[in-house]
């Protein structure tokens, strides 16, 4: 399964890119498992807080991903 990830704010600084395409092996994958995978790829993610949107809607961690989903990693911004 191929998914598209998009990174915002501090998350984009950690991944050093705005987006990427990920090839996921195996069967079904939940948002929670994707988070684990990402935090493995980018350990600094563990130190931050962020919410995840799938196809422009915020989702719970139990949600399962589908082929070609667009996954946004959204941290709260502090600045004002």
């Amino acid at each position: 399964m191929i998914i598209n990830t998009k990174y915002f704010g501090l998350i984009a600084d950690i991944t050093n890119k705005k987006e990427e395409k990920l090839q996921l092996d195996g069967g079904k994958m939940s948002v929670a498992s994707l988070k684990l995978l990402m935090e493995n790829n980018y350990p600094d993610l563990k130190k931050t807080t962020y919410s995840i949107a799938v196809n422009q809607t915020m989702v719970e961690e139990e949600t399962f991903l589908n082929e070609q989903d667009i996954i946004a990693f959204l941290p709260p911004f502090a600045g004002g």
Partner: protein
Amino acid sequence: MRYNRQIILPEVGDIGQQKLRKARVLVIGAGGLGCPVLQNLTAAGVGYIGVVDGDVVEESNLHRQLLYNHKHIGQSKAAVAAEVIAEMNPDVEIKSYKQFFNRKNAMETVVDYDIIVDCTDTIAVRYLINDVAVYHKIPVVYASIYRFEGQVSVFNYNNGPCYRCLFPEKEGVQQTPNCEVMGVLGVLPNTLGAFQATEVLKIILGIGDVLSGKLMLYDALQFHTQIINYARNAKQIEKSYINGSLLYNQKQELEELDENTFLEKIKQKNVIVLDVRQANSPALIVGENVMQVPLEKLETYCQAMDKSAAVILFCNTGQRSLMGLELLKKQGFETVFHLEKGIQSVEKYKE
């Protein structure tokens, strides 16, 4: 004449302008976001605007905080902002709070307002605003920025989701950096503040689709905007409400003294004790710092008092002293207590 160009919009009209005049909006933070919000709401004729900020103007603010100029460096942001916007539009009544929004003043500050605009720069304060706003059911117009990006949304609008529904708090996470640390292009908060002002006006006028349950993301470098939908989360709303009620009760605890705390506190040298029972009541407590000021005379009497002084009020039952406490707080006194159940609850002074 001043509002003609917006009154001729059928969506606004005279009725809309009256709604703006009657509206009460609290702007928390008078920095990058707060300045454009204040300017736009003032120009639009919002009738009553509160501005909260404990900071002073610094030179490094001037590239983005357009209410201020170099002559204001070192002065209170809340005071200068209030002064500048008062000159912009004399129709608008302005109240400035020269203090940071914190757990101690949060509850009493928000109760007077219909809408809160979150223009702060710290995540912890954003959660605090959320919790008191959920508790009092006040809509919050939120924006925040990070380098070239911004977020806008509206919380607690018609039972809609809150800030915690969007970003649940994660314990033990490092502070999210603000502009001071990360840098910001001056125009960015002005763009986002204008979006916030737009949502405030829409809420007051009851027009258009308010950004409730929607997070707008803006990227200035790519000129890219998108909207993310999010839902109400009952657990997060409950958590906010509980936090809010804890703050509310903490406030009660702080202000309302029981017998022992009262006896302890009136012995302190730096407090003023006011006996607000009816005139001609026999003196009960004698001391250099104790004055008999019947409630009816309190308003006149307190004009001559130092508003930063700690004041303790008592009466027979706690009712007059509670009214006195509210009166003194309205007059700007910051530290006021009263004997909750009155002097009749104090064994030592029972008749």
